[in-house]
């Protein structure tokens, strides 16, 4: 059984929805023109993930296996609708920007993925932690991509001008192709960090380097 600490590092980093699983690409690429949009979308997804994980975990022993997927989808869709309505009512401006993408959280396979792979087999507390960790991991990825596109594409961060009027931003990064390019470079960076860490580990503990840790992948 995985420890709480492992659930957190798995959700946030080593099994990150975006960096490791490459799920949720549609909202990821669609909304991340600014850092703030990324955070907003990330937090909305986090709320849905937490809610659906908790409820799926609660009902996991009562839903017959044959109909579990449709039930999970109803649960997820309900949470998305709730978030949609609540954001529309109380965060109207952000909702206007993200509007189109909020309903699409339903089809973010990362959320169904966590429900099926984790929450349906684990206790309430562990599922909640997993939901928060995965949600934060997703938010972090959205923020990273949003921030880099905003800096490169508009020369701003959180709407603040960074380089003054003489700076000509690379407009392409705000446009859809820029999303793919920026994501590619970020993934490259992540893989590089991972490779460095592996190397260090191998050097530090040469005796256990061959330990079958690899099956976690």
């Amino acid at each position, binding site marked *: 059984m995985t420890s709480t600490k492992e659930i957190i590092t798995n959700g946030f980093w080593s099994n990150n929805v975006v960096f490791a699983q490459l799920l949720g690409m549609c909202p990821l690429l669609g909304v991340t*023109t600014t850092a703030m949009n990324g955070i907003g979308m990330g937090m909305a997804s986090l709320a849905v993930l937490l809610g659906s994980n908790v409820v799926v975990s609660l*009902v996991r022993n*009562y*839903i*017959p296996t*044959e*109909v579990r997927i*449709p*039930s999970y989808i*109803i*649960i997820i*869709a*309900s949470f998305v*609708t*709730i978030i949609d*309505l*609540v954001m*529309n*009512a*109380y965060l*109207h401006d952000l909702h206007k920007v993200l509007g189109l993408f909020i309903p699409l959280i339903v089809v973010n396979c990362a959320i169904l993925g966590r429900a099926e792979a984790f929450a349906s087999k684990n206790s309430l507390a562990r599922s909640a932690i997993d939901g928060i960790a995965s949600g934060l991991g997703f938010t972090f990825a959205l923020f990273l991509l949003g921030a880099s596109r905003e800096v490169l*594409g*508009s020369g701003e961060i959180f709407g603040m001008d960074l380089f003054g009027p003489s700076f000509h*931003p690379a*407009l392409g990064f*705000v*446009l859809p192709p820029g999303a793919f390019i920026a994501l590619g470079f970020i993934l490259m960076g992540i893989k590089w960090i991972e490779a460095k860490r592996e190397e260090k580990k191998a050097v530090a503990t040469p005796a256990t380097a061959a330990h079958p840790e690899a099956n976690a992948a």
Partner: protein
Amino acid sequence: MPDFIKMGLALMVVGLVATSILAVTEAVTRGPIAEAKRLEILRALTQVLPQGFDNAPDSDTILLSDSRLNRKLKPVTFYRGRKGDSNLGAAFVVTAPDGYSGNIDIMLAVIPGGTISGIQVVAHAETPGLGDKIVITDWPQSFQGKTLDNTKWGVKKDGGDFDQFAGATITPRAVVGAIKKGLAFFVENEGKIFQPASTEAVK
């Protein structure tokens, strides 16, 4: 109990619970959503209408439709700003069907006699950094004080009075065209537009 009944029951319970929770959420958020939308319209109205109206333009409205307002003849709400008995101006949304990517909705406020007091782009899907200069620069202010007669309605490239942007001519051309048509409609129908609130008026 046969399995299929169990499955059906499980799905039914999930569906029922989900629907009731959603119904409650909808009922709770309905008011705030309507209020947020009203404030949004009011904010746009205060920006485009002349200062000093003492009525509530967002509820003093009339619906009119014309092919010059939008191609689909969708009824357009005219928000009237009044001070006492005098008409200060009316604001309404015109739709430019020929933007670079899709429709551009522009709120346009006109003073009686047919002078523009302000415009604001309310919805568009133009290219960020190029076409969206119609929103993020002070280009919209160049419409202030324009009438059908004192202005050559077109972008400079077409021999008109309005600036286009480097790399984006289609967007400003579409906006200028839509505003000109909206203004022409206003001038011809001024009487109708300012007629007192009737039962037709939509809240």
